[in-house]
């Protein structure tokens, strides 16, 4: 099993992305409101306010999507993410990582 983490900076894609996940058989995911570090640093810590231009691409709001899935789902999830966001061709849209899951507790069999 794998834990997929998607950092979605362009949140306007969220609805379509979740719909695409349903289409390919993703049974569920957790969606968190999140903020890019650069945005917090340059807007909430005054000494770094001069870096706002540098961190202009850092989202004031983004979404972090977590899902546990079988390894063989990863290419399908990647395809869905590409199809909806085009993230493989544009920077700053989304990022995805997968990490191994050792044990599962509380999940339906």
């Amino acid at each position, binding site marked *: 099993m794998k834990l997929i983490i998607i950092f979605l900076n362009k949140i306007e894609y969220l609805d379509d992305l979740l719909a695409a996940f349903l289409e390919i058989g993703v049974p569920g995911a957790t969606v968190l409101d999140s903020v890019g570090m650069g945005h917090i640093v340059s807007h909430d*810590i*005054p*000494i*770094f*306010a*001069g*870096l*706002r231009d*540098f961190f202009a691409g850092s989202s004031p709001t983004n979404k972090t999507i977590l899902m546990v899935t079988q390894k063989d789902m990863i290419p399908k999830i990647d395809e869905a993410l590409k199809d909806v966001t085009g993230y493989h061709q544009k920077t700053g849209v989304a990022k995805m990582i997968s990490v191994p899951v050792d044990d599962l507790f509380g999940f339906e069999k």
Partner: protein
Amino acid sequence: MRISPYLDRDCIKIPLKKHKKYEIIEELLDLIIQKYPEIDKQKTIQSLMDREKIETTAVGNHVAIPHARIKNIQKVYLAFGITEKSVDFDALDEKPVKLVFLLLCPEKKLNTQIGLLARLSRFLHDKKLRKELAKCKNNQSVINVFTEHENKHFS
């Protein structure tokens, strides 16, 4: 990242003669320019003023770190001064400023600027360090205080 290698005895002034925010920034810049006359004063002042307009560089606890990225300089310049009287620097905590660091970084060395600002602002959260700096009576003692603090921190 250590601060002490960037501190230059000739770019420290205790006490500063001026008593207003922008005059103090200029007084510290003049220290740097006396030693490094290749720096364009007017352009540098403008960059420092532009940065102050975005948000105050008075980080609180009587400390200010005016700074700017400057075109056509090749190295980092750091000046430090202790005000003679407490000075209104538009600090967010509304406390007057005593300790002022002026930092100039080459425009292309953004990571160095971020690192130095982060290190300075974190170090200066340390009340003991601020107290020791405020007690300094001469330029070498400032460098000694920073060096000792860093030796403890990095040991």
